């Protein structure tokens, strides 16, 4: 069983490490968010793939042909990675890129709700992996390649499950549609950035596994929406407690007099 054609990539550097070594994130037990960032739904969370989620598994592919654009696949991916907040429509606040950029292992924050880790990054693609508590458990890969007629094609490819029962309930109630709109908009923005203003985005959705992983129902304990809502509700209470603690501390400890 063979598929073979000369490839432009360099030959393997050695079996032990693999020439893709630098493109992958290193293994970490839990995610660390950069200093100065507060992200309780990301800090200390494990990353999760499509095998760790609760809901049906979906493969969603969005493609846009950049007709008339001269950009190569690597140029498209480089711009996409560098300008991700702008091209995705999330903006700088909605998608906070860490100071070192979107390199393998970097953790980007999503508007304070959750985040993603850069699992893989090379010249022609980059992939995010989600943490516990994110609406989805899985991977999303952004890539570009040359089509048969030498047109550059940009692609976003998701392999995801809803992370827990609550998110799974939300899927037919708008979460699917939100996801589709987000990545269709992104592909249109990428195409427009390279001058292909009229690019149409082709969307293909396949249910890879219609079965739900019921034993993963406990994932709900990390649900970022629930935890964020609880945090918001209890904020006044925590403020009151802190204020009270400071007041009590001031009464018990009279101010010290300087020694003479």
């Amino acid at each position, binding site marked *: *069983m*063979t*598929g*073979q*054609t000369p*490839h432009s*990539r360099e030959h*393997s550097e050695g*079996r*032990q*490490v*693999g*020439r*893709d*070594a630098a*493109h*992958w*994130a*290193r*293994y*970490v037990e839990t995610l660390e968010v950069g200093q100065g960032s507060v992200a309780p739904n990301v800090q200390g969370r494990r*990353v*999760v*793939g*499509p*095998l*760790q989620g609760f809901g049906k*598994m979906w*493969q969603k592919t969005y493609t846009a042909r950049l007709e008339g654009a001269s950009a190569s696949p690597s140029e498209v991916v480089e711009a996409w990675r560098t300008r991700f907040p702008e091209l995705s429509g999330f903006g700088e606040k909605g998608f906070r890129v860490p100071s070192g950029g979107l390199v393998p292992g970097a953790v980007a924050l999503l508007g304070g709700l959750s985040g993603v880790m850069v*699992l*893989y990054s*090379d010249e022609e*693609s980059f*992939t995010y*992996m989600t943490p516990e508590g994110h609406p989805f458990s899985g*991977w999303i*890969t952004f*890539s570009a*390649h*040359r089509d*048969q*007629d*030498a047109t550059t094609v940009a692609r976003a*490819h998701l*392999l995801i499950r809803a992370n827990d029962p609550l998110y799974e309930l939300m899927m037919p109630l708008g979460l699917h549609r939100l996801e589709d709109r987000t990545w269709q908009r992104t592909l249109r923005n990428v195409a427009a950035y390279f001058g292909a203003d009229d690019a149409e985005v082709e969307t293909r959705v396949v249910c*890879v*596994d219609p079965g739900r992983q019921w034993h993963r129902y406990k994932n709900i304990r990390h649900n970022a929406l629930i935890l964020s809502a609880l945090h918001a509700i209890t904020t006044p209470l925590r403020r009151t407690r802190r204020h009270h603690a400071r007041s009590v501390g001031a009464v018990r400890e009279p101010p010290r007099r300087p020694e003479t």
Partner: protein
Amino acid sequence: MDAEDLHGSLHALRGEFEGVLLISRERREDMPQAQVTMDVRKVNEGVSVIDVKGELTAFAEGVLMDAYSQASDGRVRAIILNFEGLEYMNSSGIGLLVTLLIRINREKQQLLTYGLSEHYRNIFQITRLDDAIGIYDSEEEAVRAGAA
């Protein structure tokens, strides 16, 4: 149209057709194709091994699924992927393994692997594929696990 005209027309058509074939072949050669071979071996009635050599990327999908179809019959209970010849894998390649796993599980089969280098074991770990795909140090161990 007489015979000579017909012959001329057919000759012209053949030339055009051959031109089309040449363009088609050139475009196929420009297209990125799978840089992978997958040979299938039946170890025993219940276990098949797929020897993966080369690159596991999105372009390997057809080769991988064909290999699985060859490796799997009604009696096979375990599919073992031999990764000793794996030279390169990107995130799309990992995605292929997930879709293969789903297909295998649907057939009530197991997916096992051996021959992964330390680098690729780390990748299985960080992508959490090791939660669902057995990783073994040798073919013997994998076959024993598959037969159990």
